């Protein structure tokens, strides 16, 4: 048990916040998708660490589901981006403001 739990928690927090900031700062949609993935993986780290620490499988089961769902999300996200691209040749979220107010 070389590495204490708190370090894992910190790592997970770090990855999660990088994901959040990535999502908030970047304009390109693909990169936003990637930062979402980052956030989810951050949470996975946390789950796995906790599951190991408290000797309970639930965390790991949830991690599996998260990975599966993340994949599905990515698929649907990219499909939507392509549909978007077909309509308006842009991937920048700033230009997609047809509806406002």
């Amino acid at each position, binding site marked *: 048990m070389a590495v204490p739990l708190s370090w894992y928690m910190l790592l997970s927090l770090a990855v999660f916040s990088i994901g959040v900031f990535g999502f908030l700062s970047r304009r390109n949609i693909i990169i936003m998708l990637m930062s979402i993935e980052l956030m989810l993986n951050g949470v996975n780290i946390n789950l796995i660490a906790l599951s190991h620490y408290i000797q309970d499988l639930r965390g790991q089961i949830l991690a599996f589901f998260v990975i599966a769902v993340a994949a599905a999300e990515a698929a649907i996200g990219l499909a939507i981006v392509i549909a978007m691209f077909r309509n308006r040749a842009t991937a920048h979220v*700033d230009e997609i403001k*047809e*509806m*406002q*107010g």
Partner: protein
Amino acid sequence: MANMELQWYHVLIPFLPLTGFIINILLGKEVTRYKAHWFAVSSVFGSWLCSLATLQDVLGGKIIDADLYTWILSGTFKVGVGFLIDPLTAVMLIVVTTCATLIHIYAIGYMHGDTGYYRFFSYLNLFTFCMLMLVMGNNFLQLYFGWEGVGLCSYFLIGYYFNKKSAADAGKKAFIVNRFGDFGFGIGVFMVFLTFGTLHYADVFANVSSIAGKTVNFLGLNVDLPTLIALLLFCGAVGKSAQIPLHVWLPDAMEGPTPVSALIHAATMVTAGVFLVARCNPIFNLSEIAMNTVAIIGALTMFFAATIAITQNDIKRIIAFSTCSHLGYMFLACGVGAYAAGIFHLYTHAFFKALLFLAAGSVIHAVHTNNIQFMGGLKKYMPITYAVFVIAGLSAGGFPGLSGFFSKDEIIWSAYASHSSVGKFVWILALAGAFFTPFYTFRLIFRTFFGEYRGGLEAEEAATHAHSSSHGSGHSSHGAGHDSHGSGHDPHGHDSSHGSGHDSHGGHGHGPHESPYIMTVPLMFLAVGAIAAGWVGIPPLLGGGNHFAHFLQPVVGHPEFHGTHAEEWGVMILSTTIALIGLGLAAFMYLRKTDLPERISKQFSLLYKILYNKYYVDEFYNLTIVQPTLKLANKVLVGFTDAKIIEGIVNGVPNLIGIFSQKLRRLQTGIAHHYAIFMAAGAVFIVALVILLS
């Protein structure tokens, strides 16, 4: 005074004119167009007969006090419609019904051919009904009912020629000024109910002594109760009988047809105030201040009106001011405690004043103008009117032997001999009045009947053109407008340019002529009344039994005067001499030296102008009350408070929300990115909240 059951003829007195009114107003347009007077006159004549019968009962020492039905019942407040017939009511009944009958007959001639003929007679009947209900009522609320009813009828009748702006305005003015008086009167009635728990005269006057010394907190200042009630009731009297503060409506009321002026603004309605004070004498007697106020206001109005009357040029306005002055006499009498004298003067005044008005009516009827400057020399053309006019003038002026003398002298003597502190001051004013009354009356007679005829209407119109072009509203163009009165489709098809103030009578032949018999016969009856009416109250000094005072004694009591016979003789001789001097001066100025009045008016031009414009009271009211309220209504309320403040808030708040919503809407930029930032901010907000919580 034995109590007596209510008989059928007692009830008929007021309800006959009411039926007359209903028949005429409903069937007027079609059925009784020009035969309306049959119903009207017969109903008033019927109630005159019933009044005689009632007088018979009352002379026989009977009093009737009975309720017809409960009018309003709400909790402890119970008021019924009922009749109280006692000597005071009997006198008033005789006065009202006699004058009404004679004037109705006179009006047949005067209003002949007028389009609204049925409407006129129905209003006259309604007036008589209201006046009789006022006089016969046995509680304050029925008095108030009659009070407002007569006010309404005077509104209708003054504004009879409603398509004339001046008439409509005068009607409205009369009603509103009366309403000012009724305002005080209403509060007086509330106070009566609050103190006595009932409004019936019998119960109120029975335990009136209970409130003798009491004071009450009224609007913060504690005031002597009887004085408060008396003065409040007196407000109503001031309004109705055109005393000092609220007299402005009477001169304008002359816009109505002359029979109206005679009946309402001379004989009956305006005397309602005196009747009120006489009826409530138990309350008035309890408070010294109230009595003095009544006396002083009466005296001041008498003097004030008399001075104005000497300068007026409109025949009806002169008589109107003389009425005002005589009413002042009556209040003066009541103020010094001599209620019987007051009522006696009311009784005699009704006859000679109605006579004066009707005679003036027949003069106007002949020359088609009110302005005495264009009359003159009518003695030759209208002998009967002239004779009757002189009788009335003498009686009004207080010429010994005639009825006016006895009643006026009674008042002057009681003013002199009364205990009241203001007695002497009021007596001096009374004497001044005694001087002015014959002066302006005979000024009027000389200007209209003596000298030569100054052309009547045509001359006046010529003069008005000349004057109006030259220097504005010279005093000679006075007199009501001469517009083409009367709606076009009059059956008689006569020329439309007629003098104002009277109907479009068929003017056949040029010069003035005597009125038809239908008008002069009532004049004769009234002349007899003007002479003989006073004989019933000849004071013991001159060998009479003063039956009138004894007759009223149970209701109004008997004022004890201190003063020897010698003083009484002295006062009588003094007042008569002053009256004769007044008459002589008028004769001197208007018969012999006709240019004298011009010179005097030039010399004291300022005083003349003040008197001529009725001390500028109208203008003063207009400036201080009417204009500010209108301005307040238009500028302040409509413009400012309602539009700016309340609407401001009511529309302001939604607009504010609208602006706020526009701002919030702009927050929704449409970029997904920003939404994410807001979500993150929300999360941070929650985290902060969480930290705050723990």
